[in-house]
């Protein structure tokens, strides 16, 4: 074989290897999710079958119907959990974004003393493990009587989300050229007007994606919620997932169905913002 064709064969082999590698990687990423969706549609007998049934024989929505049909009929109060999750996540996200916008703007547009120390300090409050934070909060909240309320959990999630929201929004405001707002101010806008009419619309998509990131954090949080909630008054979906586990048995099918209910809103939202999210996280790195 001459060198030319040898090279061609090698390139082709590399191409195939690349395709196979890519396919396998994607399969590993997708498999757990697919498996959950599939299991939620299969009857329990089939999930438990030995030897395993690989190709689903019968698919049904029984698990979902049972789940939504309420307590006593094999269901859990999933609608209550869903409502709690939604109220808590949305409210805490809105507040966190308002606070984060103010903070992010301050970091992006002003110079002040101890700026980077301040930034690191804010980030460090985020590193406190949820379970470590839950101990004093549990005690304080119990004293204040706000354990097992929406208010308590909203307060916690706002604090949880503010540092990261500031980081993201800081990045998005940096991408908006300073000159634009200055030009608006020369044309007679106040700084306040310049912000709302020039800078805010331009950074808007980024801020929206920061909001969705905050929403996901609250939606998925477990360590704090599991200690600060008690009943259907405030239990969120991640905590509700544990309703399907008993001491020695787990209702796999029901759990899979609840998992699907949990993942769908998160999935939809992440797809909407994926592009902006990456941009916001990296803009600070390249431009300093």
């Amino acid at each position, binding site marked *: 074989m001459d060198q030319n064709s040898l090279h061609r064969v090698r390139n082709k082999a590399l191409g195939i290897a690349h395709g196979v*590698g890519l396919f396998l990687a*994607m399969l*590993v*990423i997708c498999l*757990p*999710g697919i*498996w*959950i969706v599939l299991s939620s549609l299969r009857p329990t007998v089939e999930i438990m079958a030995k*030897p395993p049934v690989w190709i689903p024989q019968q698919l049904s929505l029984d698990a979902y119907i049972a789940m939504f049909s309420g307590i006593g009929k094999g269901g859990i109060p999933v609608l209550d959990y869903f409502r709690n999750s939604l109220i808590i996540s949305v409210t805490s996200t809105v507040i966190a974004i*308002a*606070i*984060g916008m*103010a*903070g992010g703007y*301050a*970091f992006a547009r*002003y110079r*002040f003393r101890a700026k980077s120390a*301040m930034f690191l300090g804010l*980030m*460090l*409050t985020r*590193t*406190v*493990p*949820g*379970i*470590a*934070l839950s*101990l*004093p*909060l549990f*005690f*304080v909240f119990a004293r204040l009587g706000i354990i097992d309320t929406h208010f308590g959990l909203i*307060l*916690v999630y*706002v*604090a949880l989300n*503010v*540092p*990261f929201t500031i980081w993201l929004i800081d990045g998005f405001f940096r991408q908006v050229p300073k000159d634009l707002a200055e030009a608006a101010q020369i044309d007679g806008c106040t700084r306040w007007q310049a912000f709302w009419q020039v800078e805010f619309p331009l950074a808007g998509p980024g801020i929206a994606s920061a909001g969705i990131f905050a929403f996901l954090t609250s939606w*998925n*949080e*477990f*360590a704090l919620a599991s*200690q600060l909630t008690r009943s259907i008054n405030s239990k969120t979906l991640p905590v509700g*997932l544990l309703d399907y586990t008993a001491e020695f048995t787990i209702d796999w099918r029901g*759990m899979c169905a609840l*998992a699907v209910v*949990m993942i769908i809103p*998160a*999935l939809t939202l*992440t*797809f909407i913002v*994926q592009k902006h999210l990456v941009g916001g*996280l*990296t803009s600070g*790195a*390249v431009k*300093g």
Partner: protein
Amino acid sequence: MKGWRPSPPLLLLLPAVIVLAAVVVLPLLLSLYSSFTPFRLTRPETLWVFIGARNYLNILSNGDFWIAFARTVVLLTVALNLEMLIGLGLALLVEKASRGQRILRTIMMFPMMFSPILVGFQFKFMFNDNIGLVNNALQALGLTDRAIPWLIDGNLAFIAILTAEIWSSTSVFAILILAGLLAMPREPVEAARVDGCTPWQTFRYVTWPFIMPFAFIAMTIRSLDVARAYDIVKIMTDGGPAGRTELVWTLVARTAYSDARMGMANAMAYFSILLSILFTVYFYRKLAAARTQIAAEW
């Protein structure tokens, strides 16, 4: 109102500072105080008994705690390194793909949407010794004829937890490194190739320095919530079997809520907070260094 006026950045940051002080800093001060007391939830009056550093001394001589602590550090170190490597590989694979990059990127983000508790649950399901996908597949392929007790044997459970952890967090690295690869200018790579660099040399001396800050961003973000491994472990093994997969965080939760020894748990929690802060500060400083280096070169 005349006279002293606070500067605008101070005013803008005030709400953030107030919220964080109220919900994070003050409670932490309280827990710092209570770590010097024998506080039990069932006996509130014990909050006022001051015992100095006895909790901390007890922890220092507590073998179980140090084993859990060491296990946590090992888990984090192994997980972060593997996530970094796999994420890098994944990013390079996707960047090389000539078609369908958008959809590949979307699939890559998939694990990010899963709540850690959900990750724990789905891997508990898949690693179940009796009905799990992993054992079923291994048996169907004839690789093993008996069920492997994934979550029952201590070492295997550690591997299962590691797998779950890596599955859920590799995408952060992959996505950010891919962003770095796509933002990178073409010329240096081409110049290196023309000058006769091998692919490995091109990667090591041209590509890698460029994407390093992105890798450190991922590391920093990831280190912000290393403690979410708690959710995964809590549901997969809950520290079991017989404490063989106990991490600092599950130990804190058990001491505080099952044993109701709040004072002791708070003292332990301070070790775990210290651990998180060390990880974050370390990567943050790396990030800052990489940033200034890039700024100087670009």
